[in-house]
């Protein structure tokens, strides 16, 4: 495979005067698990949200599986995609949020089947069967009928992962999936993510779980003030950081 799953070329993003991303260059290969760390406000979430076009990129290019995100190139002009075209492209990119964002008025099962049935037009019965299978995989086979507020944070997050997987995405984005969880619930979620990685899913994971980054990650990116400061093998970056800013950050969190 020559074309990487994600390719960022000089991605910039500002909110008004605040430059949040200042030229990000990154590649994520097929099947790669990339972990992203960095101090609060460094632009990690923003970068992730650019990948599925929840945020518009101001400058630079972002490609997912060879497809330009959010635009169509004709000659040297970029044409913005229509809303339904953007929605169509998001189908193949799963996203998991820090605060789960399950739909509270639907059961766990309904949360998972909503998009496959409503967006992909899958038959209800097969979507249900697939959803039950996914719930089993995340260890919640008995929670199909539970509403989100009847589940613990860790359980909700695993349902959220199953919900994203139900779309059979080629890429999964995780934005601090365990940061809102009580410490004893973190392990279950990380375990699900580890299994997903073993199955070959391409993943970009913003996380503060250095253990996960070291053991599951294929590469590690340290971001600060909207730029990639260091990028390499997780063991190298964590064990022997080259940049001063990385050293300073790691000395605080490790």
């Amino acid at each position, binding site marked *: 495979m020559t074309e990487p799953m994600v390719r960022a070329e000089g991605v910039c993003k500002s909110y008004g005067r605040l430059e949040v991303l200042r030229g990000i260059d990154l590649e994520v290969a097929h099947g790669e698990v990339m972990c992203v760390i960095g101090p609060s406000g460094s632009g990690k979430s923003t970068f992730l949200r650019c990948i*599925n076009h*929840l945020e518009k990129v101001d400058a630079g290019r972002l490609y997912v599986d060879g497809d330009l995100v959010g635009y169509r190139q004709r000659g040297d002009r970029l044409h913005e995609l229509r*809303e*339904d075209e953007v*929605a*169509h*492209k*998001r*189908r193949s*990119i*799963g*996203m998991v*949020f820090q*605060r789960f*964002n*399950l*739909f*509270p*008025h*639907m*059961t766990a099962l309904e949360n998972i089947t*909503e*998009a496959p049935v*409503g*967006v992909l037009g899958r038959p209800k019965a097969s979507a249900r069967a697939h959803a039950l299978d996914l719930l089993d995989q995340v260890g919640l086979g008995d929670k199909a009928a539970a*509403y*989100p*507020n*009847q589940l613990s944070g860790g359980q909700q997050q695993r349902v*959220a992962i199953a*919900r*994203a997987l139900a*779309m059979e995405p080629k890429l999964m984005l995780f934005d601090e999936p365990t940061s809102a969880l009580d410490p004893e619930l973190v392990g279950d979620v990380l375990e699900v993510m580890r299994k997903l990685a073993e199955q070959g899913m391409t993943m970009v994971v913003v996380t503060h779980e250095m253990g996960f980054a070291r053991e599951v990650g294929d590469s590690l990116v340290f971001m600060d003030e909207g730029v990639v400061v260091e990028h390499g093998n997780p063991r190298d970056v964590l064990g022997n950081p080259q940049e001063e800013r990385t050293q300073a950050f790691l000395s605080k969190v490790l």
Partner: protein
Amino acid sequence: MTQGHAPQKVVPVRHPWRWVTGAILAVLIAQAATSVVTNDNFGWPVVWDYLFDPRVLQGLQNTLILTVLSMVIGVVGGILLAVMRLSGNPIAAGLASAYIWLFRGTPLITQLIFWFYIAALYPRIGLGVPFGGPEFVSWDTNTLITQFSAALLGLGLNEAAYMAEIVRSGIQSVDEGQTEAASALGMTRGRILRRIVLPQAMRVIIPPTGNQTISMLKTTSLVIVIGYYELMVAAGQIYARNFQTIPLLITAALWYLALTSVLTLVQTQIERRYSRGMSRSSKASRGLVNRLLTSGSDQV
């Protein structure tokens, strides 16, 4: 920790004044009730005579039809206006704001009369190319605008302005993360609104909508100004002949109370339907009497 402890004796706080005020109120209420029943001027036999009078029932039917249809127009219009206001489109948002400004800013009675006499402004209404182009179809305004359609237009369009604000606050009460998660799943804006945002907004939208419906039930009596026939007009026409003013007003009031009670129950059912997944245990529903005696506007 509790082992070996004798159970604590708890002496609850006593409220002697509650008993005193309660007793005084009970006496006053009993006195009022007796006087209402025994005072012949209330004319209870007349009240019962006219309760199921065909003219009263006809008025009641019109009141109900007006209430239901105006609320349908109001709710649909309100959702449209709210979505326009929240859309990124400045022209749509501006139009919706102007509509709300106009319809909330003028008396309903004025609007009713305005719609009834719209034929004076536009004798014919048609579809065609704007700014003087050819017209495809047109109607005589006077045949379109009956007392009924003017009443519906007046009540429904006015209601839409109020419902717009209710729907808007409901939509805005839904966490942005919901829209984000739905977008990330590839849902389009319309689908997100229908499947994710509105069902959650309902919890905030329903109680004030119940209030509006109950209020509409009684507001329909304003259509008397354009001569449409409803419950209050029916009662009025009867007492204009037999001079039994108070008994007929009571007849009408009893019907309004009955309808309000039914609406309150319906509202409770709908609220329960939309509270699914919103509280850990399904909240113990309040007693029926309690429900009927409080306004529908209390927060969920």
